[in-house]
């Protein structure tokens, strides 16, 4: 049953300010788990909370619990570089990410929560004719899917980013592919916004509740065992980026996934420098600037299996070398903090939103390092699958059996080696 939640607005902030901010209420409840739910979502990260929100708001399924082993948003949505884009190449991917982009564009109004979605654009630099042609192919594929894309030559890049190194670069900048509608969003706020949205429609968000097993009755999944007891459910939907292997193993499943560590970095706060998002593929480097002023940047995954949320020096130095190679003006900015997130890297670099071989058990994962931008569409399509039993048209390719059939979605053409995607 819906719960009344206070509506946020400038007026509200003003009123509370005048009355000593005494009237604010919790953004979500802290309910005790019930014995049964129509749907249990395992994992209170961005995707899980978004799924709950859309189950309730789009499909009217409100008897839903989100079980989170720690605090909500403690996974990759709490530790990413906040980039939102839909500049994919393959038909299995691009329509899905464009759906996500459209959901991003209305997120704040939908959630009544300011996730600071900021469409300041993303540009992927290229340095050779072959790279230009590959980006042209991609830009055209984006247009076919209704997305926006602009192919810029060197002059266009100079205008957009005058601070890059055009005179002395080892790999001279020849141009770039721009997606103006791309940008960044305040990552934590996305989780909080979805949590608040779901909670306000009656979804129970249960933190510090770890799932320890699935209850299977003659081959059908009918609920979970958790650190807060057994909870039965009509459907159980797993959505645990970074723990997919461990959780699905409890259902006896091996996945086409390896877990790797991706590091990210933020500098001390600075007055505005970087307009949007810039990616320098040849140097394994991408960067944006947060509203607080920190330069947020990263590069490749460390490349070895890891469940430790930290990486090592060679990658740190490799990323900074890329940064200095392309924009030597950031040299005297200081790296303030580095951290690692666990990426469920799939065998072709693309995710899964699918039923499993166990009836009643659903799986969403394998997002590699692209999960944040996918959050709204992932929730939307997962909710659609759970509610209707049918895959959403834009996510139909995200099947678990695609390696058996050969219908892989390999954007990089790197083959079945996760650390190359």
């Amino acid at each position: 049953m819906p719960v009344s939640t206070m509506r946020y607005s400038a007026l509200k902030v003003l009123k509370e300010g005048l009355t000593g901010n005494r009237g604010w209420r919790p953004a979500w409840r802290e309910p005790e788990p019930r014995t049964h739910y129509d749907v249990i979502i395992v994992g209170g990260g961005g995707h899980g909370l978004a799924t709950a929100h859309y189950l309730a708001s789009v499909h009217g399924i409100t008897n839903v619990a989100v079980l989170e082993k720690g605090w909500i948003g403690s996974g990759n949505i709490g530790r990413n570089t906040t980039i939102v884009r839909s500049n994919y190449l393959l038909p299995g991917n691009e329509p899905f990410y464009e759906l996500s982009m459209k959901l991003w564009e209305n997120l704040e109004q939908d959630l009544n929560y300011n996730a600071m979605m900021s469409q300041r654009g993303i540009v992927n630099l290229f340095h050779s004719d072959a790279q230009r042609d590959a980006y042209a192919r991609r830009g055209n594929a984006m247009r076919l899917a209704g997305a926006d894309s602009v192919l810029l030559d060197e002059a266009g890049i100079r205008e957009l980013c005058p601070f890059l190194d055009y005179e002395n670069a080892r790999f001279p900048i020849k141009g770039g592919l721009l997606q103006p509608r791309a940008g960044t969003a305040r990552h934590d706020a996305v989780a909080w916004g979805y949590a608040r949205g779901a909670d306000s429609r009656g979804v129970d968000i249960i933190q510090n509740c770890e799932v320890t097993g699935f209850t299977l009755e003659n081959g059908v999944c009918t609920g979970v065992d958790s650190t807060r007891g057994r909870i039965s459910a009509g459907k159980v939907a797993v959505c645990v980026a970074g723990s997919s292997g461990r959780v699905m193993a409890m259902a006896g499943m091996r996945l086409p996934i390896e877990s790797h560590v991706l590091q990210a970095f933020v500098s001390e706060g600075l007055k505005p420098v970087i307009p949007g998002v810039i990616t320098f593929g040849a140097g394994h480097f991408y960067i944006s600037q947060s509203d607080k002023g920190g330069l947020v940047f990263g590069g490749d995954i460390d490349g070895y299996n890891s469940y430790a949320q930290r990486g090592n020096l060679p990658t740190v130095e490799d990323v900074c070398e890329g940064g200095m190679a392309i924009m030597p003006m950031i040299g005297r900015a200081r790296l303030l903090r580095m951290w690692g997130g666990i990426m469920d890297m799939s065998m072709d670099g693309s995710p899964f939103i699918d039923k499993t071989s166990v009836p009643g058990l659903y799986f969403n994962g394998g997002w590699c390092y692209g999960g944040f931008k996918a959050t709204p569409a992932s929730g939307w399509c997962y909710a659609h699958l759970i509610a209707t039993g049918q895959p959403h048209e834009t996510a139909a390719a995200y099947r678990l059996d695609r390696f058996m059939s050969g219908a892989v979605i390999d954007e990089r053409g790197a083959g079945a080696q996760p650390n190359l995607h």
Partner: protein
Amino acid sequence: MLIDHPLLGLRDASEFVYLGDASLMNRPDATAADASQQFHDYLHLRDNPAGLHRELWYHEQGDRSWLIVTRDTLTHEISHVELARDVSLAHRATDQEGGA
């Protein structure tokens, strides 16, 4: 990280290239009836353990040996390092005995 190379001692992991689970050494028999299923599982499915992991590293900036490193994916602690070729040969030998 540092990898304790069986022949060369401690070497910085940045000299190595990582491949993945050591099970990639056990390439299935292409003539088997269910070869396509076997190859699918062999190439794509992983235990992906949170804990001890036997994995393949290639000493590209060194002696070009492929190594099997046993490493804890939670702590990154390395407990054992072997030359992949030795392991593969031993594995083959036992197979043949088994076959004989």
